């Protein structure tokens, strides 16, 4: 496992294209036409655990080509030899898509043809919940793809008093059924043998029979479609009866007649969708009737129906205890992403600022590298990489927490408990968690938006998260509030948090009405999977995979931004004056005020005139704040000390200097100007790492739109606060 984790070479991403023969650098016979196996199943049936048992560390998590659906792909080396590509598809309740996640499964099983079509589907069915799992199975079987059933959770089924006659189930379905306990690896070898055999034989699955009238209709439409229906002919015929897609010319009459026969009472004149809807419901009922029959013939039930999981729910979802317990869990999550993560984050940062930077400096000194190169490496690259890696522990903690909450089953309960509250901003209950985490840091919060399955909701949440005031912004509030509001400082900081919540709710409201009108307020409908103990090994591998993906996407933006800022502050403005000491200005030897960075800040400053802080110190702080809010205080001090050295010797010199600046820029209205500045700081882009994380979650275009929105909102609010403040004082 370790060699796969550490050496990129051994991790071979398996795309749908057949891996090329020259790719087998790490030895072993590589099947030129390596087969593709996909895992399909309901959410929470143990698919990912099974995937891990099959592939070990030879896996890779990433977006499916051309989609924003994260999929784990890996290589499985079955004992029988050869290599098989395995794909862990997102959990789905049916093949009729409701989200891009589910669309991918439908596309692969129904629409894909030739090499794009998987060779065998491993239908992963939860033995403790067979009726509903068989409903999905019936749809898979209708696609005519070769299927093998992996029956998971057999241990759970047994403990609930369900006796499953696996051979009988296999006979009823007409495909091999292998009981597995993915968590312990039990049954995985048997599954391997069966999958290999299925890859050899490629027998299409036997469809689940519906009632006679439906079967007659399907037969008629299939015949009319003829050979052009392709391997998923039965699925196509059913889809036509359900009103999905247009029938080809020669099949149109037959389809229309079959529909009329099946739904004689429906009135297509009143609503053309009416018969299709009725048939769809009828097919669903027929599939469940079949599932009940199969269950009746293969599963014996003894023992109580109420499980310990139900008993836990009596407390965890109860009217009085549900919310307090939820808040306690959220408090735990917040603590873990702040108090626990902070020292780790600090340690990494210190390691890079100290030993790594010094060490590299010494090495560069030994080879007598030019000064600019040393500067670039130490202050640009190393500090950028350091900042990026300092987020790694925090992100790892976040990914582990998400996995624990999801896999344990608690996340669904949490979503139920706060559903009503979150509807205020038009998002489901699960959105609460990323928002809470956002008060610590927006970066893991953005990663947390993944718990929403609907991509539009994910996008909306991803756009709102930056308005959640993170702890890095707190340091700036405290500094400014301390200087300007004296004994009222605490209240002012509290006000900033209230404003942050108001911004999230308010912007959620606005966005819902402007850009997200398609988000319908459906009533809550949520499966509550049984409480389970998460598998540590799976969590470890998945966390590592997600962390790697994050570092890969974030590294570019962060290193580029840090390097750019370093460059800007190293290059003197044309015509810069020599320092009072007489030392000539040159690259890397320039006061902030005389550097290009200072020049840019000066150029930006007038934009803030209507907000009362038209001053280059303030805009320099905001430019730095785009890189990292943690750096704002340091930059501010730096810009003043460089310009007004006399003040530095007085206690609270920075405070006095800031006071003077705001006094001057606001025309005496210091309080509204400072408030405007703080509000701008709250609302505009949190930091470049957030931008990188946002890009990883919602894509480049939405991220850019988000930055534009944040700047516009921040500026408008700042101007409004200052202007109103001036009127009132």
């Amino acid at each position, binding site marked *: 496992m370790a060699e796969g984790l550490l050496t990129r070479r051994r991790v071979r991403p398996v795309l749908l294209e057949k891996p090329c023969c020259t790719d087998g650098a790490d030895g072993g016979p590589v099947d030129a036409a390596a087969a593709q196996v996909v895992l399909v199943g309901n959410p929470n049936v143990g698919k990912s655990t099974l995937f891990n048992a099959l592939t070990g560390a030879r896996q890779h998590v990433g977006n499916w080509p051309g989609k924003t659906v994260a999929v784990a792909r890996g290589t499985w080396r079955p004992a029988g030899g050869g290599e098989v590509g395995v794909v862990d598809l997102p959990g789905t309740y049916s093949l009729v898509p409701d989200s891009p996640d589910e669309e991918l499964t439908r596309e692969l099983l129904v629409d894909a043809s030739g090499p794009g079509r998987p060779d065998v589907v491993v239908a992963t069915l939860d033995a403790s919940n067979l009726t509903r799992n068989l*409903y999905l199975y019936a749809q898979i079987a209708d696609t005519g793809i070769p299927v093998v059933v992996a029956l998971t959770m057999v241990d759970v089924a047994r403990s609930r008093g369900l006796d499953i006659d696996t051979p009988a189930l296999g006979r009823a379905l007409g495909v091999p059924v292998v009981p597995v306990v993915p968590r312990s690896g039990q049954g995985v070898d048997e599954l391997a043998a069966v999958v290999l055999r299925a890859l050899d034989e490629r027998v299409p699955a036997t469809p689940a029979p519906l009632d006679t009238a439906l079967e007659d209709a399907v037969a008629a439409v299939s015949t009319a479609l003829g050979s052009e229906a392709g391997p998923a002919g039965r699925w196509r015929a059913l889809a036509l009866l359900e009103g999905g897609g247009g029938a080809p010319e020669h099949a149109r009459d037959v389809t229309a007649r079959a529909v009329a026969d099946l739904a004689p009472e429906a009135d297509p004149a009143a609503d053309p969708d009416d018969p299709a809807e009725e048939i769809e419901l009828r097919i669903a009922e027929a599939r*469940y009737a079949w599932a009940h029959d199969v269950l009746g013939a293969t599963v014996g*039930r003894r023992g109580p129906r109420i499980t310990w999981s*139900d008993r836990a*729910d009596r407390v965890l979802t109860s*009217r009085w205890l549900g919310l307090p317990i939820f808040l306690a869990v959220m408090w735990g999550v917040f603590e873990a992403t702040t108090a626990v993560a902070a020292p780790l984050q600090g340690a990494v940062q210190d390691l890079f600022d100290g030993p790594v930077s010094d060490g590299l400096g010494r090495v560069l000194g030994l080879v007598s590298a030019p000064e600019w190169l040393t500067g670039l490496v130490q202050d640009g690259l190393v500090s950028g990489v350091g900042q990026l890696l300092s987020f790694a522990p925090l992100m790892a903690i976040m990914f582990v927490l998400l996995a624990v909450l999801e896999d344990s089953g608690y996340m669904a*309960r949490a979503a139920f408990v706060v559903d009503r509250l979150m509807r205020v901003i038009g998002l489901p209950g699960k959105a609460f968690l990323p928002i809470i985490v956002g008060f610590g840091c927006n970066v893991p919060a953005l990663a947390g938006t993944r718990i929403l399955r609907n991509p539009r909701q994910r996008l909306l949440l991803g756009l709102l998260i930056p308005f959640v005031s993170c702890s890095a912004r707190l340091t700036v509030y405290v500094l400014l509030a301390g200087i300007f509001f004296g004994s009222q400082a605490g209240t002012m900081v509290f006000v900033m948090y209230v404003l942050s919540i108001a911004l999230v709710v308010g912007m959620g409201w606005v966005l819902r009405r402007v850009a997200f009108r398609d988000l319908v307020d459906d*009533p809550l*409908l949520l499966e*509550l999977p049984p409480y389970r103990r998460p598998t540590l090994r799976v969590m470890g591998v998945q966390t590592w995979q997600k962390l790697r993906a994050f570092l890969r996407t974030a590294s570019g933006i962060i290193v580029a931004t840090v390097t750019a800022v370093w460059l800007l502050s190293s290059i003197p403005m044309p015509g810069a004056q020599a320092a009072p000491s007489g030392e000539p200005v040159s690259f890397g030897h320039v006061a902030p005020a005389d550097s290009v960075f200072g020049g840019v800040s000066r150029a930006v400053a007038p934009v803030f005139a209507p907000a009362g802080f038209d001053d280059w110190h303030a805009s320099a702080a905001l430019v730095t704040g785009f890189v990292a809010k943690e750096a704002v205080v340091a930059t501010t001090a730096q810009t003043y000390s460089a310009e007004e050295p006399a003040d530095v010797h007085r206690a609270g010199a920075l405070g006095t200097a800031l006071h003077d600046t705001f006094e001057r820029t606001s025309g005496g209205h210091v309080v509204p100007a400072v408030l405007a500045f703080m509000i701008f700081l709250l609302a505009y882009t949190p930091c470049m790492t957030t931008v990188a994380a946002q890009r990883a979650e919602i894509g480049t275009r939405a991220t850019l739109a988000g930055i534009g929105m944040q700047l516009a909102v921040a500026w408008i609010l700042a101007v409004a606060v200052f202007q109103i403040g001036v009127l009132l004082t």
Partner: protein
Amino acid sequence: MSAPEIDAAPECPLTDRPVGSTSTLRRVGAGRVRRRRLAELGFVPGATIEILGRGGVGGLVLAVNADTRVAVDAAGARELWVHGEGRRG
């Protein structure tokens, strides 16, 4: 679902049923997409629905067809039209 004594039983939304009761689903009063989503979880006519608990603001925790646990809010529960004690399952 065609047994006459069942069809004659009065129909009511699930919200009218007490915690601990078991009912048989008769119809779903919702649009097509919603009906599809419900069907995927087992809510088709004839399904048994047991109310396991009631959360805050009218939400219900249900057992559908014995094995699936589903949470709905009050609005979701009003879409589910059931009748009396279930005869199935």
